[in-house]
């Protein structure tokens, strides 16, 4: 009776009317009241209508279905009752759901579409405001909004693109300046006075300089083929009496130029930034630029105690007592003390010289010089549908050109009226005295800001399906073949997908899907604490990103089992990363496939990039890593922590108690335990990898304990144990990947109604050895994908 009474107080009538709702509240309301709010869930504050608090209700449903609630030790509803409750919530969730039909192209899609539509690879959208993301991806219809600023930039971009296509880019050389946020210089290089990290200590350091803090790594996109001047501005100096040092320029992994870096005659304030530059011809597109200072600890004056000291005579050192101005006898005591301290500092510096190293501070890339003039043959071929590339057009050409382009730009058939309007635009420009091509350019300009271009308007029919396929697998517009088949009304997704996966454009899945799912993109901005992880450098960062990208791309190209992601015995390494992993026999900057049998690695969870992305800047976090695995591998994201959770005492980690002991303390609290019992053990299994993914056996003064027990009783230890658990849970992993792919393909969050489709995808993938292509086929064949925009 008490339950019912409580219910009457708590539950709004609309919900209370349903018997299933009454059951739900009978079992859940006591713990999840406003007063107790266990697990941060307060049912009283939850909207009575399931539809209004969709996310929360979806999470409730998930916990109920997983059998996690009510928690062990509490009275549980009869399975039949539980079923009634879940059916009720699910039904409510499915009701009255509409999906947005207009989905704006995001920045990547915009750039790629312009490239494929007009043969113009200016990538103007890189200058548009950042796209918001939701559900882990930045191609979600709901979150892609339009602001006046975006439109203004799109209008400017449209003009630039249209003119580039018809008149050529007419690129004047342009300077891009890249400032290094904090030039990373070597503050600590005296091996006697201070402890230094092993690889850049003077005895054993990276002689190429590629991994040193002062080296510069950048992948830069060059707008057109042409000559470029790359100017590197340095900071720091070789102390007086040093032999010449060197700066090296690398392009795409090849050493292309060396310059000497002479000693500097003065010291102190004369830090003297200087620059070196090369001029080189580069093709359009991305190139990797590196500038590094090799062997920079060598050839220093002997008192720096570096390897191969300089044989030159070091100039006499200044007398510190004379370096500061004499003060009059009646100077205030403060000034006298200041002078005394300054002299003491100067003496100390002389006695313990520090070579702060050379660093790149800024890079300027100017170009293209002497680029090709006029429109590219590629652009003309794509624009001038009449085929008169020589410009000798005939009557009717304009309509043909504009009509054909509009069909491709809008990715659907166009009406005569639409062509009329665009043609009129072109004609009006000519009437104002512009050349024929300018008229075309204006029509193109209009198409590029038309909502028909900027938005994907989801509807039924073969053309919409063609667009869905191409934006899913290629992040760009359909190619001619897809459009032709859509025009014939004969498009079958399952027939197109294999060809599309084999096409190089499917690399978009690596950059955009995996880049977000595995958080590779985030690696570009992580900043591990330099004091704790001096091994982390830009070369390592770039190498980490590349490893995971190459691994995923290989998965697509060789159509391997997705189980490789969690349990592969191979990866892709260069020397830098191999050294980070302690794997011998890999030399040079080029990546290659490496067999991992007998090593401490295997699967993406042991990729340094993923280990870094799932750590804090200062330390590892089994909680973060466990959460990462639950979210991205096992498809069971935990709810956000309840408010007022005491934070971990960062200072104490590794000093007063081991991290593990602290977290176990945390889990004594049953509210915390309900989630952490699942999260933490997964993370503990990876504790042998530090916050930048290097192997370790100690955390501070405590030995690593990489054992953990899951709530279901399974016990595991280390990466090996985790891999075997994940192997057993491969269906959960397949479901997770399927859901992520579906979310990305549909541009919306998944719903209950999509679950059947996910289950079917997983079943079919299991029957096909979990080959990557089987998941892709499953997604494109699924009802939600086929009927997006329909209903």
């Amino acid at each position, binding site marked *: 009776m008490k339950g019912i009474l409580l219910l009457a107080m708590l539950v709004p009538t609309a919900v209370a009317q349903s018997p299933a709702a009454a059951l739900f509240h009978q079992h859940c309301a006591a713990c999840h009241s406003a007063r107790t709010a266990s697990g941060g869930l307060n049912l009283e504050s939850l909207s009575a209508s399931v539809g209004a608090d969709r996310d929360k209700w979806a999470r409730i449903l998930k916990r109920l279905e997983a059998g996690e609630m009510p928690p062990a030790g509490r009275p549980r509803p009869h399975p039949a009752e539980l079923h009634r409750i879940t059916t009720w919530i699910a039904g409510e969730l499915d009701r009255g759901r*509409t999906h*947005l039909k*207009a989905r704006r192209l995001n920045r990547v899609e915009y750039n790629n579409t312009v490239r494929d539509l007009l043969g113009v690879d200016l990538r103007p959208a890189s*200058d548009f*405001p950042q796209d918001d993301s939701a559900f882990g991806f930045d191609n979600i219809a709901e979150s892609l*909004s*339009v602001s*006046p*600023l*975006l*439109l*203004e*930039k799109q*209008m*400017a971009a*449209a003009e630039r693109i249209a003119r580039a296509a018809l008149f050529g880019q*007419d690129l004047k*050389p*342009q*300077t*891009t*300046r*890249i*400032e290094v*946020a904090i*030039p990373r210089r070597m503050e600590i290089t005296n091996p006697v006075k201070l402890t230094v990290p092993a690889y850049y200590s003077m005895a054993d350091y990276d002689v190429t300089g590629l991994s040193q803090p002062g080296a510069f790594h950048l992948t830069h996109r060059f707008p057109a083929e042409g000559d470029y001047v790359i100017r590197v501005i340095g*900071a720091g100096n070789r102390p007086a009496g040093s032999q010449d040092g060197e700066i090296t320029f690398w392009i795409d992994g090849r050493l292309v130029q060396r310059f000497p870096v002479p000693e500097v*005659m*003065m010291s102190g*304030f*004369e*830090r*003297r*930034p200087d*620059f070196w530059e090369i001029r080189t011809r580069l093709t359009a597109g991305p190139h990797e630029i590196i500038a590094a200072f090799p062997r920079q600890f060598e050839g220093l004056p002997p008192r720096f105690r570096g390897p191969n000291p300089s044989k030159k005579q070091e100039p006499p050192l200044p007398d510190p007592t004379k370096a*500061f*101005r004499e003060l009059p006898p009646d100077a205030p005591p403060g*000034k006298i003390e*200041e002078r005394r301290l*300054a002299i003491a500092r100067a003496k100390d510096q002389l006695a313990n010289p520090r070579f702060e190293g050379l660093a790149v*501070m*800024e890079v*300027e890339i*100017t170009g293209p010089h002497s680029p090709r003039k006029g429109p590219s043959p590629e652009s003309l071929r794509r624009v001038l549908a009449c085929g008169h590339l020589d410009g000798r057009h005939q009557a009717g050409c304009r309509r043909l050109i504009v009509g054909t382009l509009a069909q491709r730009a809008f990715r659907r058939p166009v009406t005569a009226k639409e062509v009329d309007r*665009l043609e009129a*635009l072109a004609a009006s*420009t000519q009437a*104002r*005295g*512009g050349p024929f091509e*300018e008229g075309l350019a*204006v029509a193109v*300009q*209009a198409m590029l800001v*038309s*909502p*028909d271009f*900027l*938005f994907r*308007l989801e509807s039924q029919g073969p053309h919409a399906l063609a667009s869905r396929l191409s934006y899913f697998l290629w992040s760009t517009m359909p190619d001619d073949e897809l459009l032709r088949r859509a025009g014939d009304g004969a498009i079958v997704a399952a027939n197109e997908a294999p060809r599309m996966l084999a096409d190089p454009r499917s690399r978009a899945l690596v950059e955009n899907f995996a880049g977000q799912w595995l958080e590779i993109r985030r690696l570009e901005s992580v900043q591990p604490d330099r004091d704790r992880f001096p091994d982390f450098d830009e070369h390592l960062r770039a190498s980490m990103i590349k490893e995971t990208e190459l691994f995923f791309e290989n998965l697509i190209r060789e159509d391997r089992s997705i189980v490789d992601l969690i349990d592969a015995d191979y990866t892709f390494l260069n020397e830098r990363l191999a050294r980070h992993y302690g794997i011998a026999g890999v030399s040079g900057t080029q990546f290659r496939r490496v067999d991992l049998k007998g090593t401490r690695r295997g699967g993406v969870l042991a990729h340094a990039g993923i280990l870094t992305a799932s750590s804090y800047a200062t330390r590892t976090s089994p909680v973060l890593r466990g959460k990462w695995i639950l979210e991205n591998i096992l498809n069971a994201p935990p709810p956000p922590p309840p408010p007022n959770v005491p934070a971990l005492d960062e200072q104490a980690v590794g000093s007063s108690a081991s991290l593990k002991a602290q977290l176990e303390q945390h889990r004594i609290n049953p509210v915390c335990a309900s989630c952490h019992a699942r999260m933490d053990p997964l993370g503990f299994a990876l504790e042998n990898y530090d916050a930048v993914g290097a192997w370790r056996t100690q955390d501070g003064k405590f030995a690593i304990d990489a054992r953990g027990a899951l709530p279901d009783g399974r016990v595991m230890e280390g990466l090996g144990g985790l891999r075997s658990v994940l192997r057993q849970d491969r269906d959960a992993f397949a479901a997770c990947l399927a859901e992520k792919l579906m979310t990305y393909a549909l541009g919306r969050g998944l719903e209950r109604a999509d679950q059947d489709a996910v289950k079917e995808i997983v079943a079919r993938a299991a029957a096909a050895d979990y080959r990557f292509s089987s998941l892709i086929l499953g997604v494109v064949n699924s009802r939600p994908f086929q009927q997006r925009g329909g209903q």
Partner: protein
Amino acid sequence: MRVITGKYLPRRTVLRSLGGSIALPFLDAMMPALGRAAQVKPPVRLIFGYVPNGIMMRDWTPKSEGGAFEITRILKPLEAHRQDMLVLTGLAHRTGEGPAGDHARAGGTYLTGVSPKRTTSADVEVGISVDQVAAQVLGNRTRLPSLELGCEATRMVGSCDAGYSCAYVNSMSWRSATSPNPPETNPRSVFERLYGSLDIDTDPAVQARLNANRKSVLDYVRDRTGELARTLAPADRRKIDEYLTAIRDIEKRIARAENENREITPSMEKPAGIPLLFADHVRLMHDLLIVALQADITRISTLIYAKEGSTRSYPELGFSDPHHPLTHHRNNEDWMEKVTRINLHHMEQFAYLIGRMKSIREGDGSLLDHSMVVYGSSISDGNVHAHHNLPVVLLGRGDGSIKPGRHLTYGEKPMTNLYLTLLDRMGVPAEKLGDSSGKLEHLAGV
């Protein structure tokens, strides 16, 4: 890492400042290229140039005072403009004095009159600079409140001088005590800041046609978007409605911009980047400054010819010794001669700016007549880091409020007194700046 492609402000800043009402360069490009509005009284401009490491004062200071002062060796390039020039002797920046760190303090104090806080990290602190005091009052009348230029491309970071942050020598303009306005050193970026990144055809007929094209595109997209919105069910058209709103917003802004009738035609080619030769670089910066003043894009500017403590060398002068070490010449005649030649080289560049400003007719006089251009250093004798008796010249007539053609000597006055006076001439009320003790007398006559 910060990547800047052909533009001055990082994108974040643009976004933040775009309260929906600021016309971006693209919109400016859509404005009709009408002629200048009817003659109005030209505004007064305020410009500060800076040269580092002091000056060889024996080759700078005229011996005689008043109107009959003689032209010294370093002032020689300005000889043709002696009737537009005041040589000011006896001004000081005592706030630059102190223990080691004279160069950093000199840089920090030059336009602020405040001794900078000794720090090498982000907590830099000095004072608001005179140009920004003016910009905060007058800046809303021009597209750019002020323009910060520099001719030494490399920026030093961390500690530059005995525990002082490099910020004090990298920037001389300070928006507030804690926010430096770093100068733009790349001429191309300056150009794009003035005119936007679109390449604009200089032929007015072509420009008019391009503007008409842009408008017809806008018409097309408005019509098409409205049409599309009507075909979609209300629930589906949220995003399209957003788009329509954005279009209307832009149309409104264009209408506003058209009402202003401002001319924005660039009168020079877009530069490619930073020329290698100092003189070429400075000349481009001067040209850009002049077009910005002429088109009234800004009225306030600062120009760092070289940064305080600069170790730049000028091999084009026949020797490669870096500047700063030379200035610690310990009375070595050879070194002193080299310092004078560097001082002279800088002055030759400055004289070009003055010559061009003088050649531009404006209202009842020249651009120079309507300007006040200060050129000098925050150190006099570089050998001993003296912060008093500074080398200062003031060019221009401030629209008749200054009587040039004289050498004025003061017992000793804070440099900031000069600034207060200039602010007064600009119509900017200011009681105090840094260590100022009042206004500087005699600028308008004895």
